[in-house]
């Protein structure tokens, strides 16, 4: 217990110096280092002068923030390789494309059979007609910055949002769209 108390004091001291370790979230980020999902979200309590922070359902502490004290770099663009046969499951790929915690492609792209699609990205209905190689589609989802440094498409592979198998499933789904 004493050690924990001393550590808490050290943490306070660190926060006071307004500098950050090169590999840690900055001192003005609000998170609970002991929780399984560290990120906290603000909760406004009516008729109170205190702001509460509650656990958020995603841990976002590993990526750079907007803080002036954040010394962590953006992961650089990665050129991916697609080895062996594609071996993707189009049905699983479709599910991943709709899930907000996975690809959530539908937020930006139109896909067949779904209402309220996004229009920020290109319409992906009938994607097969472009006859793009699997390797190219894989790279576009893995890290589109390789083709266009100003892309708004998240680097799903480089940032660990999707696993390699999930990327293969998405490629199989897109290549199946007639």
């Amino acid at each position: 217990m004493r050690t924990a108390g001393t550590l808490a004091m050290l943490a306070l001291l660190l926060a006071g110096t307004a500098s950050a370790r090169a590999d840690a979230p900055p001192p003005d980020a609000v998170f609970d280092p002991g929780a399984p999902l560290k990120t906290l979200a603000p909760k406004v309590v009516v008729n109170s002068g205190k702001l509460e922070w509650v656990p958020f359902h995603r841990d976002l502490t590993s990526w750079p923030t907007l803080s002036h004290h954040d010394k962590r770099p953006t992961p650089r663009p990665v050129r991916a390789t697609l080895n062996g046969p594609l071996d993707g499951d189009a049905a699983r790929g479709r599910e991943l494309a709709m899930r907000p915690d996975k690809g959530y492609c539908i937020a930006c792209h139109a896909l067949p059979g779904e209402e309220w699609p996004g229009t920020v990205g290109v319409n992906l209905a009938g994607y097969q007609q472009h006859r793009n190689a699997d390797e190219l589609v894989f790279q576009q989802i893995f890290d589109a910055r390789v083709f266009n440094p100003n892309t708004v498409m998240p680097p799903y592979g480089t940032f660990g949002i999707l696993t390699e198998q999930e990327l293969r499933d998405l490629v199989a789904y897109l290549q199946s769209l007639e």
Partner: protein
Amino acid sequence: MGILKQALISCVFVAGVAGASDDVYREYDPLETYEPNVAGDRKHSNTYQYWMDPKNLDWQMAGNPDENWKLNWKFMDPPFNPVVHGGHFAEDRGETLYKKLNTRGRFASCLGATKGNLKGLRASYPRYRAELKRVVGLEEAIEICAKRLGHQLENGSYDNSAVSVYIASRSNGMPIRIDVSKGPMKEAWERGRKLFHTRAGRFNLACSSCHTHQVGLHLRGTVVTTPYGDVAHYPVYRTRYQLQSLHLRFAECNLDTRTQPLRPGSGAYTDLEVFLTGLTNGYPVSVPSERD
């Protein structure tokens, strides 16, 4: 004991890198220029024509889900919106709290009001506070001034935002007017502009990824709107969040785009506030307001 030793070592390590390395690799959306005036939207989304006169918005556009985004959601602000909502209760509570804090006039003078008159105060924040040697937003000033009088009104808390809504209501209809052409305010505006284009989080997105380069396009069911004229109605009543200050809105934006949020009043959020308030220069303060 092992952990303690490790913590001490990392402490020394921190001291070693403090203030160093601006050469860390970070990515940015192409840096655009903006006018520190709401009319700058004419060259941005060009929706300003539809919401420039908040008293005379087009009812038909407001009722059309394909068009209402062009009104920049101003149809939910007074004087157009006559609905009584949670923002009105917040304003009432803010008035009670303010009068209690200001019995001797010290709270008002600490906030920068001349002779206790709150008229125009909201329209001139954020501002540089010489005694703090930095720029602060109105909610941070409320927190600091309440603390000097022995009260806790934490930045982002309901009561802090309620006082802010009350103070803003004394400037209703007055155009926002901050000067970002020189000194610390200009520096904050420039830092804010750069932050607006700084990619962050697990999706590697910047504010400008959508609000500069994709305005008018759909993200699932919502339509991306312009950053111009957006701070005139804060703190705002939100059905999901009770009362939301601008900095808490930034935290929500961050969470929505998979980015770790920061504390209200942090340097980055204050710089963003200065930048966005500049983009609202010339637009009237409109509280209490609501959003979905």
